[in-house]
């Protein structure tokens, strides 16, 4: 394996290759990302009512996010490792600050107003939580002992509960899954995972018992959106019509009638996949999923190639969380998962998630391009 790595590094003498390597950019990953981003402009133009200014704003945000990705790719993973604890602590403190300020203003609050810009600590936690867990678990030998699993679970639950209380279920879910992924890749025993799943399943009726009537109604609508035909159910019904009417070949670019006639709400943000499915049909959908799979595969490859435990765990978690994004959004839009506010990664308009995602890819590139060439 060491030989292979050595070959990879010394077999590309081209000028461009050297240049890109000194830029700390991973070409296959970058190409995958660029393809998805290019596609996002195509879809957004149609979904956003063919408004050019929307694309400009999308491009600006994407450019900034890419810039951040490149900057992070230059930082040595060891730096990330040594800053993990500090970063995570700051995140938790900020989340507490947001919760307290929300209490004071008597309203739901996710933002921290820093005057010149508004900052969403929960978004930041999507990165700092897996970093923290990767640091914590890599300090000990793997697979983690029960004591460390409990420690990691507590570390993870603090930000997850704070975010869920905001309430921002989508982000809480993503943070939780990023942490769970670290534990999974660290070698958490299958029996333990089975135990947790069983425990959660058996706790559900107890929790149900303690809920109030209106809370139960909320959960029921959450699970079965069709029960609320004016709200979440309306989204799902319209979204299914859009997707189904697209058929195998789709109605063609700019051919989406459902978004055009305003039947499909939030067509350029959370429900953009429905527009895509209507216009590009089953072939387009499979193609987009293949693109996502390509990016995920490359990330997994980077994780396998990583040279230390911290990098490996973090890379694996970031790759897996990216997939959770895709799954939760598309699952929601095609009506197999409850409606939570998770955007289609890199494609949906707006939101700060694009910045976080690109930062994650920056870390992955850093891990891959800072590998040491070990002597034979």
């Amino acid at each position, binding site marked *: 394996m060491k030989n292979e790595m050595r070959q990879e590094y010394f077999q590309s003498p081209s000028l461009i290759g050297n240049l890109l390597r000194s830029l700390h950019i991973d070409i296959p990953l970058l190409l995958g990302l660029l393809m998805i981003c290019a596609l996002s402009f195509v879809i957004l133009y149609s979904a956003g009512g063919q408004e050019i200014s929307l694309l400009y704003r999308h491009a600006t945000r994407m450019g900034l996010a890419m810039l951040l990705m490149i900057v992070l790719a230059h930082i040595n993973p060891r730096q990330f490792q040594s800053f993990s604890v500090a970063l995570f602590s700051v995140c938790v403190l900020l989340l507490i600050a947001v919760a307290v300020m929300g209490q004071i203003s008597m*309203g739901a609050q996710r933002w921290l107003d820093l005057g010149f810009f508004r900052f969403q600590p929960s978004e930041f936690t999507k990165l700092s939580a897996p970093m923290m867990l990767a640091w914590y678990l890599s300090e000990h030998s793997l697979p983690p002992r029960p004591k460390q699993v409990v420690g990691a679970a507590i570390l993870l639950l603090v930000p997850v509960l704070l975010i869920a209380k905001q309430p921002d279920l989508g982000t809480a879910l993503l943070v939780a899954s990023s942490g769970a992924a670290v534990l999974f890749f660290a070698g958490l025993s299958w029996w333990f995972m089975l135990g947790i799943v069983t425990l959660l399943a058996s706790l559900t009726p107890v929790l149900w018992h303690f809920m109030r009537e209106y809370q139960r109604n909320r959960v029921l609508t959450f699970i079965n959106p069709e029960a609320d035909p004016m709200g979440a159910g309306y989204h799902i019904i319209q979204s299914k019509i859009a997707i*189904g009417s697209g058929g195998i070949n789709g109605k063609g670019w700019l051919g989406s009638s459902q978004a055009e006639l305003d039947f499909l709400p939030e067509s350029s943000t959370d429900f953009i996949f429905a527009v895509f499915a209507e216009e590009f049909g089953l072939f387009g959908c499979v193609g987009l999923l293949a693109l996502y799979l390509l990016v995920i595969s490359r990330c997994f490859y980077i994780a396998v190639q990583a040279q230390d435990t911290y990098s490996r765990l973090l890379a694996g978690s970031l790759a897996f969380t990216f997939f959770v994004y895709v799954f939760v959004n598309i699952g929601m839009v095609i009506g197999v998962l409850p409606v939570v506010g998770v955007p289609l990664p890199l494609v949906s308009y707006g939101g700060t998630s694009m910045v976080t995602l690109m930062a994650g890819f920056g870390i992955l590139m850093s891990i891959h391009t800072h590998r040491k060439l070990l002597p034979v």
Partner: protein
Amino acid sequence: MDRKFAIKDSLAENRIFLSRIVAAFVLIILIIAGLVARLVYLQVVGHEHYATLSKDNRIKIAPLPPTRGIIYDRHGRMLAQNVPTYSLELIPEQIENLDETLSKLQQLLNISEEKIDLFQKQRKRNKAFTSTPLLQNLTDEEVAKFAVVRPYFPGVDVYARLVRHYPYGDLAAHVVGYVGRINEQEMKTLPVAEYRGTDHVGKNGIEKAYESQLHGTAGYEEIETNAQARAVNTVATVEPIAGSNIYLTLDIDLQKIAYDALSEYNGAAVAIDIKTGGVLVFASRPGFDPNPFVSGISAKEYKALQDSPDQPLYNRALRGQYPPGSTAKPFLALAGLEYGVTDFGHRLFCPGYYKLPNVEHKYRDWKKWGHGMVDMNEAITQSCDVYFYDLALALGIDRIHEFLDQFGFGRKTGIDLVGELDGLLPSKDWKRSHRNQAWFPGETLITGIGQGYMQTTPLQLAKATATLANHGKVVIPHLAHRIINANYADSIDLLPDEVIPLNQKNVDNIILAMTNVVHGSRGTAGRLAKAINYQIAGKTGTAQVFTIKQEEKYNEDAIDFKMRDHALFIAFAPVHDPQIAVAIVAEHGGHGGSVAAPIAGEIIDAYLNPKKDAQHEK
């Protein structure tokens, strides 16, 4: 570098990690396969079905908010009603350039900058495809103006809406409360489906306490739209179910008499129907106009209300906590008789002050030179403080607490309003747990005249008075009389089922003394007795706002108005068949007898002789 020392571990970790990556990858492939399967189901199997739906998809669903229930007084006069008004509303998602549209509308209809800001705030809270009001209470002229240019403003429309209106304004604001826009906090707890299309919720008073009954059940309609997404035809409708109408026990005429009688004083008047516990009067002065709260009160107006030294938003009848002063004396006297520490004929010499053994401090009577020899009847009639210092000492604070607690002092009455305060009935335990101090005998003395730690709300005083008039059958005050909707009419006249065990002879004696307060030759509320053909039993009270020093003289004229004593009066009538119990607090009124008692007199007289009162008005 440290990994060199643990090569074996590293290899094992490597193996585990690789196997996990493979497992995760397999999982991802499986899930993606599942997603594709679902897409095949929708796009291949279900394609024809959905394609048909898509072609016919001209149906939109619009919520139909229910009509809010009306609030009436006991004689069917509307205290809260729904008035149709036109509002200009925008659906942000359908508007291409919102800023431009707003500035055009602003020019056309002369909309203030503040209203634009309010709209922007509201818009951010709502979803982009819901209709958000920009301007309310449009005049016919404004409606016509917009109608002309309507085709150029897609996503903007005029809607007829029912808006809550309170015809009696400040008079009943503290009872009826008001509705206001749903805020983010409320959005979290209200049932989502029920409140779609509704943007108001009860914030205060009956509007809040009976929110679930008043609100009703939402319906929706399926609307056929044209290519510009404008409604052309209603396909199907699920009718909303209007909220229940609520009849209160309140008598708005009586309320007005009480409110006017309080005149320049801040304070509260509460009157209860003794037979049912129905609240007849629930006045807190000054009041405020609840109507601006419905459409969204401006920050400036709200600040003015909040910063006013008279605190108009403060519900004095429900939340005002005052020392009961001498109005507590009948209850203490009854306690003395019930516990057998004294009897009705017991006499005591009042020199104008009272001293605890071995203590220099003089506890003064309000009458500097004293009342001389008094028995219990005279002590109540003339409100002798010294007699009650002695009685309180004989009872001890814990027995005072035990007895007065039965009448509801120091705890919520349980009235059907939100935000009632407890007041305070002190005891040794309370002082230990709350002040971490031992109880002093001097504190028992001043509790004997309703001063010190003791605090009551006007509502509590009225309840205690009604319970005393009812010979110990506990009266529970309530405001809702009947709740009526299409399916049922619910009458809530609570009959007291809790009875305080009392010796009726003792109660009769106390009532006799209270009757003498009004009808006796030396009673402190003697002026009430003139020109009435029935008997009133009452007790005056004066609650100290600040403490004067030992040898200082209380000089009313020299004292700043805000430092003057509160005037209190409790009463019920007629004595032999009690029907109405009243409690009055006039802040800084000085004397119970001269200020508070006449207010009670007016309420009682208007209630017992309604015809006579009507003639007066003519």
